[in-house]
């Protein structure tokens, strides 16, 4: 089930690598295609010096078994200056990163996104062979984390992080890694509750056997003994194992909501008290077996429902974007300073693609700030020397020097963040099925109980208590409470095999109620991979290519980004005189080369500004005023997207929001069926407003975006799906993550969510039949413990089996899972 998640990213990379090149020229270490510039060492081919150096380290320490478990398992290390982790020597930072230290031995937990295979586990658990200070290291594969226990006098946090980075396992270090709370014990306590319930369930059944065979009637002494033993065994179940139902019911009632846990908690409490009274007064053996069995099954349902993808992060926290340290210039020297220690007046140096950590004033350099993940606006904001720059922006282009005017924690950024969907997403708009059904069910049961009491009051008052408690016991909506977790949980696991990862199983239900789907054009529907670009024109030397890539790198325009990826240059070189003219192109000088990229009149000075040819876009290149050729982009829409849209359109209202100008509408109109509503020139605020407007019309909106931009609109929608190419290094604000090439399955997925809801309805129907049978006996005051012990677990198990297997079978017949 979850194995797919773990290997998916890797397999795809490898598949890409293999299709792009023959297997003979694949890097021995990381498996990426090694080109003509390949490094050879020890008779093996490596794609770059980084991969070779990892191989060298491993081979020197006789750790080459690393290459035995998986083929080409490595990741290429990022080669950056060694003083990069200098800040980890800062005792304050190191202390906040370490989980536990006794002055001698310290424990450190690091999140390492590049963990992906068994070789990774093997190597990372053998770290002590590379650094003698490391006593012990252990990988948690699903969480992609590494726990290291090390001797503080022999090694340091910095040494360990540097070692890991040099091996291609760079830990993720950001502001969010500081003072991370120790993982909660929720799971552990659920396991304990299940274990105790199972223990009591088994033993109570054993001691109830004589009762089932009617053998204990003659032997009152042993009957009493077994009764008291059962009472004792049931005590921890009723108090400890069931505590989460009481708590949930109480929380629900306090919010004036009758959720499904209310009748459950009531049922458990009543069955326990009634049975205890029966045993103590010697009336009968009680219903302890039914109670323990139900609690056990309900807890299993809880466990099944609580499945999460540990390695994926669905919360969007600004701390995750902030680095731990920033380069500060004092005198002529640059040192790395923890950003928590940054003081107003410090001179900071921000390089390309680095985040500005504090509100500061620009002192030198040309600042072009990308605020896209604060505001969702994808264009660059130029700033002049002396201007105030707010924290949270990302510098693009050459490096700049700033003077901090505020501490990090006082930045306006935090406020800005909160305006754009920082606070937790609360979803109260869509009531869950179990809550709705739970409410009516509870009211129904109370009505039956009261009328039963009224009836017996008239005819035989001595039977009132018997009958009423029996009603509450047998009506415990356990099967009802199990149907949804098992159906939705199974669906969620099946979607995982389609690379569609849900935050929790409740999203399945939310998806089934969607009637409007809004696509954010950027990256959702079009494929942004290198395959769609090709260069036509005079041959370019590698220096020229590098220069083009360096200039294109300075722009966040998707076409520029695609050119950078297409060229795949080794190094990005400093660009001077960079200018971006919106809608036309970019220019800049790299060394002695003046590069102009853009539309034909901008770059080459002649020809029409837009090509009539639909479906493709050309970016022209001019080097030192000489027009050399163009990059041609065939706008490749994702495979199968047209069919998916056709299918989706049958049941949902579809809309596409695009930030592009209406000029492109012609091409988009070709692609989308005419029932799709299209809006152009949409700013993030417009998109947010559009979603709000739909919701005012009582539409239930699914927003599909790339997760980084337009966080406001994503946050406002009822369900948010982020589409991404790589799911591991990603933290969007969303309810589900969909892998790019699975967008074509969206129609199937949406249909299947409604199917799942129907399966839940059917399960409800089944459990209601059992309940009615049980109630038939209960209202007469004739519910024997044996009947209860058979009927109640049977109904729960039927529902679990039905919902799980039907979901699976229907999914298989529709090609999911």
């Amino acid at each position: 089930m979850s194995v797919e998640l773990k290997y998916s990213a890797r397999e795809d990379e490898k598949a890409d690598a293999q299709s792009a090149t023959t297997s003979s020229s694949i890097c021995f270490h990381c498996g990426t295609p090694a080109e003509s510039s390949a490094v050879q060492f020890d008779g093996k081919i490596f794609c770059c010096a980084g991969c070779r150096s990892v191989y060298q380290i491993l081979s020197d320490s006789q750790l080459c078994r690393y290459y035995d478990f998986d083929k080409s398992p490595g990741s290429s290390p990022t080669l950056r200056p060694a003083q990069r982790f200098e800040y980890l020597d800062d005792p304050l930072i190191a202390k906040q990163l370490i989980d536990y230290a006794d002055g001698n031995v310290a424990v450190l937990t690091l999140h390492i996104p590049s963990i992906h295979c068994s070789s990774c586990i093997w190597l990372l658990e053998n770290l002590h062979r590379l650094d003698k200070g490391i006593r012990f290291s252990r990988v948690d594969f699903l969480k992609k984390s590494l726990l290291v226990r090390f001797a503080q006098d022999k090694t340091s946090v910095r040494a360990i992080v540097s070692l890991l980075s040099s091996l291609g396992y760079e830990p993720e270090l950001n502001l969010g890694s500081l003072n991370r709370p120790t993982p909660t014990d929720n799971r552990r306590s659920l396991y304990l509750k299940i274990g105790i319930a199972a223990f009591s369930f088994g033993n109570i059944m054993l001691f109830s056997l004589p009762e089932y065979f009617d053998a204990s009637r003659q032997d009152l002494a042993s009957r009493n003994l077994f009764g008291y033993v059962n009472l004792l065994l049931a005590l921890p179940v009723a108090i400890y194992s069931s505590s989460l139902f009481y708590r949930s019911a109480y929380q629900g009632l306090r919010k004036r909501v009758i959720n499904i846990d209310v009748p459950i908690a009531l049922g458990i409490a009543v069955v326990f008290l009634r049975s205890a009274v029966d045993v103590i007064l010697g009336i009968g053996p009680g219903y302890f077996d039914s109670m323990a069995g139900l609690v056990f099954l309900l807890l299993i349902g809880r466990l099944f429902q609580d499945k999460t993808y540990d390695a994926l992060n669905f919360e969007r926290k600004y701390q995750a974007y902030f680095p731990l340290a920033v380069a500060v210039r004092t005198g002529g020297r640059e040192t790395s300073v923890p950003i928590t220690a940054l003081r107003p007046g410090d001179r900071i140096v921000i390089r390309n693609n680095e985040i500005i950590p504090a509100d500061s004033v620009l002192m030198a350099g040309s600042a072009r700030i990308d605020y896209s993940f604060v505001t969702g606006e994808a264009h660059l904001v130029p700033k002049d020397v002396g201007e105030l720059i707010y924290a949270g922006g990302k510098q693009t282009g050459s490096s700049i020097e700033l003077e901090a005017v505020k501490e990090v924690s006082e930045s306006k950024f935090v406020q800005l963040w909160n305006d754009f969907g920082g606070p937790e997403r609360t979803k109260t708009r869509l009531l869950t099925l179990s809550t709705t059904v739970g409410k009516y069910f509870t009211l129904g049961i109370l009505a039956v109980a009261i009328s039963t009491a009224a009836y017996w009051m008239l005819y035989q008052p001595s039977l009132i208590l018997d009958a009423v408690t029996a009603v509450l016991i047998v009506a415990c909506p356990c099967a009802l409470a199990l149907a949804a977790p098992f159906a939705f949980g199974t669906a969620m696991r099946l979607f995982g095999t389609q690379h569609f990862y849900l935050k929790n199983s409740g999203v399945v239900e939310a998806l089934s109620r969607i009637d409007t789907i809004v696509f954010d054009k950027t990256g959702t529907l079009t494929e942004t991979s290198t395959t769609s670009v090709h260069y036509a024109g005079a041959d370019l030397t590698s220096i020229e290519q590098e220069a083009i890539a360096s200039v294109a790198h300075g722009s966040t325009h998707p076409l520029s980004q695609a050119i950078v990826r297409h060229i795949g240059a080794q190094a990005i070189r400093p660009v001077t005189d960079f200018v971006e003219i919106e809608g036309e192109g970019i220019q800049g000088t790299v060394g002695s080369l003046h590069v102009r990229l853009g539309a034909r009149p901008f770059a080459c000075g002649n020809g029409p500004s837009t090509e009539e040819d639909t479906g493709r876009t050309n970016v022209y290149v001019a080097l030192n005023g000489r027009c050399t050729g163009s990059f041609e982009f065939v706008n490749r829409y994702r495979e199968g997207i047209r069919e998916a849209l056709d299918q989706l359109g049958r049941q949902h209202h579809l809309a596409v929001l695009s930030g592009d100008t209406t000029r492109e509408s012609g091409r988009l109109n070709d692609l989308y069926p005419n029932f799709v509503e299209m809006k152009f020139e949409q700013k993030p605020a417009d998109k947010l407003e559009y979603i709000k407007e739909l919701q005012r019309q009582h539409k239930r909106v699914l927003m599909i975006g790339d997760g980084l931009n337009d966080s406001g609109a994503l946050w406002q929608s009822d369900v948010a799906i982020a589409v991404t190419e790589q799911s591991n290094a990603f933290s969007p604000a969303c309810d589900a993550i969909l892998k790019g090439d699975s967008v074509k399955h969206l129609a199937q997925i949406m249909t299947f969510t409604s199917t799942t809801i129907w399966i839940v309805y059917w399960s409800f129907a089944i459990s209601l039949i059992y309940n009615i049978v049980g109630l038939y006996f209960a209202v007469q005051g004739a519910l024997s413990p044996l009947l209860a012990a058979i009927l109640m677990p049977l109904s729960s198990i039927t529902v679990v089996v039905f919902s799980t297997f039907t979901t699976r079978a229907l999914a298989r017949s529709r090609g999911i899972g």
Partner: protein
Amino acid sequence: MSVIWILVGFSVAVAAGFLAAFIWAVRAGQYDDKYTPSVRILFEEEEKTSTFDEQPNSNAEGSTQNGDGHDTVRQ
């Protein structure tokens, strides 16, 4: 029938023993990661060199590290 008292006592004691073992295992974190151990158990015991360690590396330090490491992991 008083023998039943002894039997009940024993059966509950044995079952409680297993329950205690389970509680200990959960508290010790054995249920925290249910995937990685399934991979870890397949790693062979050390000493055998990889097919990729072609030339026997006569680095003495390296081999002592091997021994140390092995013990540490099995703690």
